[in-house]
């Protein structure tokens, strides 16, 4: 990746609960995101994968300032994103977009498609009157919907069409960075392919940078330039898509990849089956977070968190990332 860095994340942390209120008892601290380091290059798609509850959605929400981080630093195009407030935050929001998972819940059913798509324009007073109409028509065209869609309501559309409307809304201010949180997970497989195609086209046309959050490895492999694997609020491995899928270094990544169904009964499969459940984010294990389920865990894993081992653009948070144990 020779592209310049657009987004640099260091030690990003989000803890839920904790402080007791007047009518509320002290609650245990849930470490949803617990020290994430990431770099997103301009114009690339970074895929974030992980099980349910690993913190990937929370991280996406932190990066568009839907949630306030507990700690860490996010540098967006040289700006300290987490410290922004008021007008400065509103201004930087023009550069941030988000596409949501549920195309039924993410569009307000009482608004027309025109008002939905133009809402970001209205908020930033970016276009009014004829200009606003023209922009909506353009956006509809860009996402492959007819101009006549503008005066209808969301319930008159299918799931895939609604997701196109959501994408048009995210694009309306021509942002540079878009978080796609499970953006195709709620869609039929055939429709998924079309939306992925559309996203790829839009990225090429507008030079967009995507953070693509998904639990679906096949989809991520398809769209992402680089992939980061999350486990219990931390990134355990990240690298170029090809390298990571071909030669995963972290045992968790290996287990995830081995769970992808192979549509060929002749091909031998080497399944790495994990024992037990994901430990609670209320009390993450000491040392390496994965040691409770890791097939190759040693004494050192219970003691010290692994130092991130760095290859060229490929990191894996495992003590044995370079050892023959993981080379299997």
């Amino acid at each position: 990746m020779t592209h310049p860095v657009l987004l640099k994340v260091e030690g990003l942390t989000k803890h839920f609960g904790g402080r007791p209120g007047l009518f509320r008892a002290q609650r245990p601290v849930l470490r949803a995101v617990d020290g994430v380091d990431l770099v997103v290059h301009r114009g690339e798609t970074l895929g974030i994968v992980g099980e349910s509850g690993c913190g990937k959605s929370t991280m996406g929400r932190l990066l568009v300032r839907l949630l306030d981080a507990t700690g860490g630093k996010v540098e967006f195009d040289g700006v300290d994103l987490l410290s922004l407030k008021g007008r400065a935050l509103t201004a930087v929001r023009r550069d941030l977009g988000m596409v949501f998972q549920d195309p039924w819940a993410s569009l307000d059913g009482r608004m027309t498609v025109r008002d939905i798509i133009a809402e970001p324009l209205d908020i930033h007073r970016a276009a009014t009157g004829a200009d606003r109409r023209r922009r909506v028509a353009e956006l509809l065209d860009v996402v492959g919907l007819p101009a006549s869609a503008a005066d209808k309501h969301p319930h008159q559309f299918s799931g895939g069409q609604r997701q196109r409307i959501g994408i048009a809304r995210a694009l309306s201010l021509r942002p540079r960075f878009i978080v796609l949180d499970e953006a195709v997970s709620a869609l039929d497989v055939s429709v998924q392919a079309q939306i992925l195609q559309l996203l790829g086209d839009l990225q090429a046309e507008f030079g967009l940078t995507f953070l693509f959050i998904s639990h679906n490895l096949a989809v991520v492999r398809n769209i992402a330039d680089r992939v980061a694997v999350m486990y219990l609020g931390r990134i355990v491995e990240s690298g170029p898509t090809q390298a990571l899928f071909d030669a995963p270094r972290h045992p968790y990544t290996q287990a995830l990849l081995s769970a992808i169904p192979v549509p060929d009964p002749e091909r031998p499969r080497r399944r790495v089956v994990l024992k037990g459940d994901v430990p609670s984010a209320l009390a993450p294990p000491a040392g390496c977070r994965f040691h409770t389920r890791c097939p190759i865990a040693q004494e050192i894993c219970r003691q010290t968190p692994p130092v991130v081992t760095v290859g060229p653009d490929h990191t894996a948070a495992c003590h044995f990332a370079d050892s023959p144990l993981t080379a299997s």
Partner: protein
Amino acid sequence: MSTEDILADPAVDAARPRPTQGYPRLRRLLRHRLFMTGAIILVIVLLATLAADLIAPYSPLKNDFRYRLGAPNAVHLMGTDNFGRDVLSRVLYGGRTSLAIGLMVVLASTFFGTLIGVAGGYFSRLDNPVMRLMDALMAFPGVLLAIALAAVLGPSVLDVVIALTVTYAPRTARIVRAAVLVVRRMEYIDAARVAGAGHLRIIWRHVLPNSLGPLIVQMTFIFAVSILAEAVLSFVGVGPPPPTPSWGNIIADGRSYIPSAPWISLFPGLVIAITVLGVNLMGDGLRDVLDPRLKLEGR
């Protein structure tokens, strides 16, 4: 050509039926027999009250001691009261007071209830303090609270409205809060926030339009109950002050004469019963049509 493409095709699209055209809910409401019965009753009562100047046979305030406590007859269809005033005329004019009180209580409790409910439902910091206060108000039996407040405030139409609003606004607030709690978690709220929308915009454009549905049924209920409560307040002497008639104080005035002249209390009582029945029928009809569990169209 895939399904998606076909659906997006303008020509095919133009030929598709449009499910929301022609207000399907309104049509269902107009076909709802109980709702229409209630609506007709209410319209008749409203028209008769508003046209009291034209159709009332006598002044509601004119005493005529020759005809004190006169039984219903061709001249006084509902008889006369202890001052010889025509009961029919008083009921017609009294309806203005009673219905106005009902309407004002509905508007005021909807306004304040929505304000409080949105505050509690949307701003989680305010939720506990505000809603515990509402719980405290709701812990009193409604009419008892209204009587206590009206006794403190003194008898006047406005004081009755204030007393009943304090009584019913907490119930409205509960309903609005519950709806706001659901709407607040919808992803379209997040989408607006990502775009940079402020709280006021989100509340005005998204939260309110999506949470006020359940309130419509509640509004009919409050209207009906306020008319009844006005009668109760009058009966214990803290209602709208005489000589201005209201349905409640006509009944209250007649209560000493019930053995000898039951018509004084009977007729306004019947009118209240019919009006409340009509309003409740409308409320039931509205609930049938608006209830999401019975809703046919998908969202």
